[in-house]
């Protein structure tokens, strides 16, 4: 049982268990709290339609706020799209997913993934600098923000080191990479990274509320 076997075996297994348990814990911990019905006369029906609408529309800023939020929005999107591409279009990852769920799809060439990965890390660093320098972000940021940043960046960085290697053996780097993913999976449900699913619950709630009122979503 060398480091790689440990990482690929028990470590990842436990991480996935913790991720599933943690996520359900947190989601149900929110959804099962008391729920007050809204008796007000709806201006128009379709609360559910409103929820879906906002889940989609709130991904984009309204023209009124475009100017002020242009910079963080662009960086945020590059980060998210970069993460999405590196995770879901890197062939070894696809093969991993295929091993789990049996579905696979064509991937991108590795050089493209390395490029996207580097850009994503660069943007990640830019966003961290912004969080540490922008007065608003300095005030409202806490341990969760900074640690979640690290936990998200580690898999990317360790993944990018693998082709470069810096003299370290490949299977050691692969093990470290998988352990960093395990850390991410374990940390996610207990941190702001849970916005992975809460963004839908939260946007949906607002969407349903505003759609009933016929207000701008």
């Amino acid at each position, binding site marked *: 049982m060398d480091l790689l076997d440990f990482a690929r075996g028990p470590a990842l297994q436990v991480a996935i268990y913790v991720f599933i348990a943690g996520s359900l814990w*947190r989601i149900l911990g929110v959804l099962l709290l008391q729920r007050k019905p809204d008796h*007000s006369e709806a201006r128009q029906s379709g609360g559910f339609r409103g929820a879906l609408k906002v889940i989609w529309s*709130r991904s984009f800023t*309204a023209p*009124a706020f475009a100017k002020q*939020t242009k910079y963080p929005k662009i960086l945020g999107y590059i980060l998210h799209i970069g993460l999405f591409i590196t995770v879901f279009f890197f062939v070894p990852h696809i093969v991993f997913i295929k091993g789990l769920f049996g579905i696979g799809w064509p991937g991108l060439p590795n050089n493209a993934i390395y490029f996207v990965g580097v850009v994503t890390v660069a943007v990640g660093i830019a966003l961290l600098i912004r969080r540490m320098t922008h007065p608003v972000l300095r005030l*409202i940021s806490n341990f969760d923000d900074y640690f979640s940043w690290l936990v998200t960046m580690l898999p990317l960085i360790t993944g990018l080191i693998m082709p470069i290697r810096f003299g370290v053996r490949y299977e050691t780097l692969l093990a470290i990479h998988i352990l960093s993913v395990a850390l991410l999976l374990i940390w996610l449900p207990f941190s702001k990274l849970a916005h992975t699913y809460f963004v839908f619950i*939260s946007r949906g709630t607002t969407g349903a509320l505003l759609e009933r009122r016929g*207000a*701008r979503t």
Partner: protein
Amino acid sequence: MKAADVKFDLESKRLSVEKPKARFDKQGDMSDAERVQKAMANFSKDFGTTAAAYLDACIHCGMCAEACHYYVATGDPKYTPVWKLEPFKQAYKRESGPLAPLYRLLGLKKEVTAEQLEEWQHLLYDSCTVCGRCSLICPVGIDIATLVSMARHGMYKAGLVPHELHAVAERAEVDGSPLGITPKLFEQRLEWMEDEHEVDINVDQEKVDVLAVMSSIEIQKYPDAMAATAKILNAAGESWTFRTDGFEATNFGLLSGNLELQKKNSMRIIETAIKVGAKLVLLPECGHAYMALRWMGANIYGKPLPFKVQHISEYLADSLNSGKLKVRKVDKSVTFHDPCQVSRRGGATQAPRDVMKHLGVDFREMQNGGDYNWCCGGGGGVVTIHRADELRYKVFKLKMDQVEATEADALLSSCANCRQSFDDAQNHYNWKYTAESLLELVAENLEDEA
């Protein structure tokens, strides 16, 4: 501070309690521990699924600051909307969040402290008009405005409401209406308006279709609105009445966070409406009144309301669209300030625009007007707080630029509280625009039937 010794300053541009020599921003003589305990109790009441979903979704991206006129005007990071919720969120994470047992066990989230709550009074009251602009920009869709209103419940119970808001709420509890209006006084002013404008104003009729209600600001400062409402309803041939036992539309319970008072105010209108068998309760030109009854009334009542509720601008739009009312053309270029609770939060943005189309005015929409409109800075009870004046004037500059950019002849709105804060700021900057009432403009230009 007893309700009786509250003196009103009804002469200045902005109606409120007289500027207090000594401020009583802490009510009752509870110990700090008691205040915290009261705050936590009433925060907990609101930690339902909705609040929980929001408070667990925040990713500290700080974008809500870019939408908040207090941050944009001052650049002070403490006005970041989600920062205003910090004690509320801290209490949630520690008390009711899914990970609450973990946080308590590991001591990761500290108890909210009294000092913290006192410091946050300025953030939750003076610097938040609950305008909801931040709720529109939040990328994870958190309705921050709703949470601020919720947070005020805890603040009220902890006796940490700003002096003026508390004073007005106290009088409203006693008199049934803030600004010292008693039913008697309301009736006298109606009669005064009846003579002044030679219009029949029905008062205390028994069975009617439409129950009209007024805001104390209109009754005291813009009484013509009462006459205008009467003209409109008579012209529309409605069977309507004012009721002295249920005339007050504003709800300082909602603004101060006093849930009991909010319930009392709303129930007074609901019961009166049921008594007279009204099919429609017509809300006056007031933003928070619309939010309080149109969207919160039924939930206060506990079941759907047995009558429709409309803001006067909605009624005017429907009547003009259906031809029940006809107006003369008004040759003027006009821009419109949307009251946040009616347009952005209430979804009735189109109504005033329909009315202005019928009036044939040269309507010039403000840049980012309508749903993304800058707030007048006076809503949510902020206009009554003297301590917040400097901040309000600074924030109002945004509004001034927005209006001036349209180069319209006149500025219209349909909320008395907005008009009041416009008047006060106009006086402060001796600004050329005066906020006029959409309702009164329509009333003046009704096509008088043969």
